[in-house]
């Protein structure tokens, strides 16, 4: 019983090492490989060129999400290049025997939404995908991270990945979140403090009372944006909430097998006495709803704050970056966040388009109307989320308020499909990146929670939802 105490991350890592040698990265086995249309075509081409095949199509699953139009699915896809990319994925999945949830599947959706929904995302697994927001799946106590297309090809061919062992960071959020303060605000506050490169080289484990009190959806929101802090992955130890979420899902173990799986999952949390390479502690009670003002997710302040003055930064590089960001965003230093008017609202993305997010947004606007100068759209994270929301009548609340109700996909999180901002348009967005041009060339993105986005749509500007009258 005197075994060395281990962290959640280490337990998963150690259980997946296929080969290791001094001076080399470890060879890790991958339990689940998620594939989408954008980062996979060149990988499949590579396989064909070298005469290789997919080693474990039964551990691989594909969907179409980045490119898909979010209007009526019966209409033809007008963008030929997008259509070709989707057709290429379908052909590749057919050729290599990979299950595919295509545009017309009732299970189609954003890859990071459907993995958990299908019950494929489980504690203790190694999960990869050619998408940086793969960190989402860490909410279940899995080791999940994004990879490039060369690595996608590597995993397809070998079901393994060469990985240097990352360092570990505990991000502990003590205390309780106040009313109107959400998982999105937690992760924005964390990135605001540690910075967009603060997590580089680390796997983050989120701990503490405030994290434990989050739903699985909330934990996914937090883990999702770990990459925006530069971290390799984000994780939360599995607990009863995790098991309850998984029970009965199509790919989760059933009956006695589920009980055995839970027994194993209970062994995964970090042991007492294990020590992280770095620890950061936050107080949930001090957190407020957050709004980004600049062109990366670290450029963020509480809703009660103001747009900063470039001159207030100590380093020259930061002063120049801030000045450039404010020029791009069309904002003046000192402007109160609540005084910033918006043109668009986007409720969607792998960060915040799960059923709980839509319920929370709908609750803010019930019986209200969108501000006449705001166009708001809701894009569910998956078709099952859409069906669930419709069964609960949420779509009627959104439509009555004048919001557009769409089909599932990545949509305006990255604007690969026709949903984009026009130059100069300002958007309150529940997505994960406010980079220049991310939502459309010249578009201005402010990252917020679903509740903050919904309230902004009604008011026409940002509001402190802690004072919101439902």
């Amino acid at each position, binding site marked *: 019983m005197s075994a060395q105490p281990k962290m959640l991350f280490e337990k998963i890592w150690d259980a997946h090492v*296929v*080969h290791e040698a001094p*001076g080399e990265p470890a*060879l890790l*086995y991958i*339990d*689940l490989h998620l594939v989408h249309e954008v*980062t996979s075509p*060149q990988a499949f*081409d590579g396989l064909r060129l070298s005469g*290789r095949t997919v*080693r474990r*199509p*039964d*551990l*691989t*699953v594909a969907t179409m999400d*980045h490119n898909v139009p979010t209007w009526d699915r019966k209409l033809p896809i007008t963008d030929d*290049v997008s259509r*070709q*990319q989707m057709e290429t994925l379908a052909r590749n999945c057919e050729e290599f025997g990979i*299950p595919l949830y295509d545009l017309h599947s009732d299970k189609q959706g954003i890859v990071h939404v459907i993995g958990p929904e299908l019950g*494929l995302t*489980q504690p203790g*697994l190694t999960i990869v995908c*050619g*998408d940086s927001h793969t960190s989402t799946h860490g909410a279940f106590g899995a080791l999940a991270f*994004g*990879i*490039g*297309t*060369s690595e996608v*090809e*590597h995993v397809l*061919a*070998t*079901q*393994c990945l*060469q990985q240097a062992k990352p360092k570990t960071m505990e991000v502990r959020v003590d205390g309780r979140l106040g009313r109107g303060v959400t998982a999105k605000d937690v992760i924005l506050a964390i990135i605001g403090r540690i910075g*967009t*490169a603060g997590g*580089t*080289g680390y796997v983050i484990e989120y701990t503490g009372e405030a994290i434990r009190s989050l739903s699985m959806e909330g934990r996914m929101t937090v883990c999702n944006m770990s990459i925006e802090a*530069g971290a390799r992955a984000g994780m939360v130890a599995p607990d009863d909430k995790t098991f309850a979420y998984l029970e009965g899902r*199509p*790919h989760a173990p059933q009956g006695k097998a589920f009980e*055995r799986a839970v027994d*194993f999952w209970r062994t995964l949390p970090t042991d007492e006495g294990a020590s992280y390479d770095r620890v950061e502690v936050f107080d949930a009670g001090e957190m407020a709803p957050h709004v980004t003002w600049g062109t*990366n997710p670290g450029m963020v302040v509480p809703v009660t704050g103001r747009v900063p003055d470039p001159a207030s930064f100590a380093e020259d*590089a930061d002063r*120049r*970056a801030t000045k450039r960001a404010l020029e791009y965003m069309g904002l003046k230093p000192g402007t109160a966040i609540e005084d910033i008017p918006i043109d668009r609202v986007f409720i969607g993305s792998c960060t915040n388009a799960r059923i709980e997010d839509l319920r929370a947004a709908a609750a803010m606007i019930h019986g209200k109307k969108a501000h006449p100068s705001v166009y708001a759209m809701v894009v569910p994270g998956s078709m099952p989320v859409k069906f669930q929301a419709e069964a609960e009548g949420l779509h009627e609340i959104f439509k009555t308020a004048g919001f557009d109700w769409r089909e599932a996909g990545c949509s305006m999180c*990255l*604007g*690969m499909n026709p949903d984009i901002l026009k130059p100069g348009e300002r958007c309150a967005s529940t997505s994960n*990146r406010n980079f*220049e*041009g*991310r939502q459309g*060339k010249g578009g201005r993105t402010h990252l917020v929670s679903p509740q903050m986005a919904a309230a902004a749509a009604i008011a026409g500007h940002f509001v402190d939802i802690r004072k919101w009258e439902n």
Partner: protein
Amino acid sequence: MEPFIRHTGVVAPLDRVDVDTDQIIPKQFLKRIERTGFGQFAFFDWRYNEDGTPNPEFELNRPGYEGASVLVAGRNFGCGSSREHAPWALEDMGFRTIIAPSYADIFFNNCFKNGMLPVVLPEATVNEIMARAKERPGYQVTVDLEKQTVEDEEGLVAPFDVDPFRRHCLLNGLDDIGLTLQHADEIAHYEQKRSPLLPVTAG
């Protein structure tokens, strides 16, 4: 993969921090299913005006940096999306190596997979190289992976660290998949002892 041993070339200064992969290759160009031809779209929104003409304000469009093959940039270069289209675009634009104080993880990794060397140097040294490249367009450096140095003809000799395994792979242009498949027996052995309770994707 083409080996990287040593490279001498003109330095292009991109004096910005946190340059994200959405800037390196905007999303509208990710719809292509090829691996080549992305160079024309690199830094698209910064590089071109609305009418498609080169934006003279963009650093890399200024005279003297034509044919540059060494990119020097600020910290946290390549943050954001995992898109490997970013290193593909930089390589296709003519860059063989990048010099910066730090990189985002996935981008850094993706560079090595494409025979492109991301050199990490202290911020002060990067700033010095940046200053020389800005003052004297056409300024050249030699990046030597064997010696692990960046040198110029004005006496700069900056040693850099690189992971020995990655260095070995890059120097020899090794194929990662080929290396992993040397352990095929161990992979098969691992698969035999995997729990039958683990999920499969079919059905």
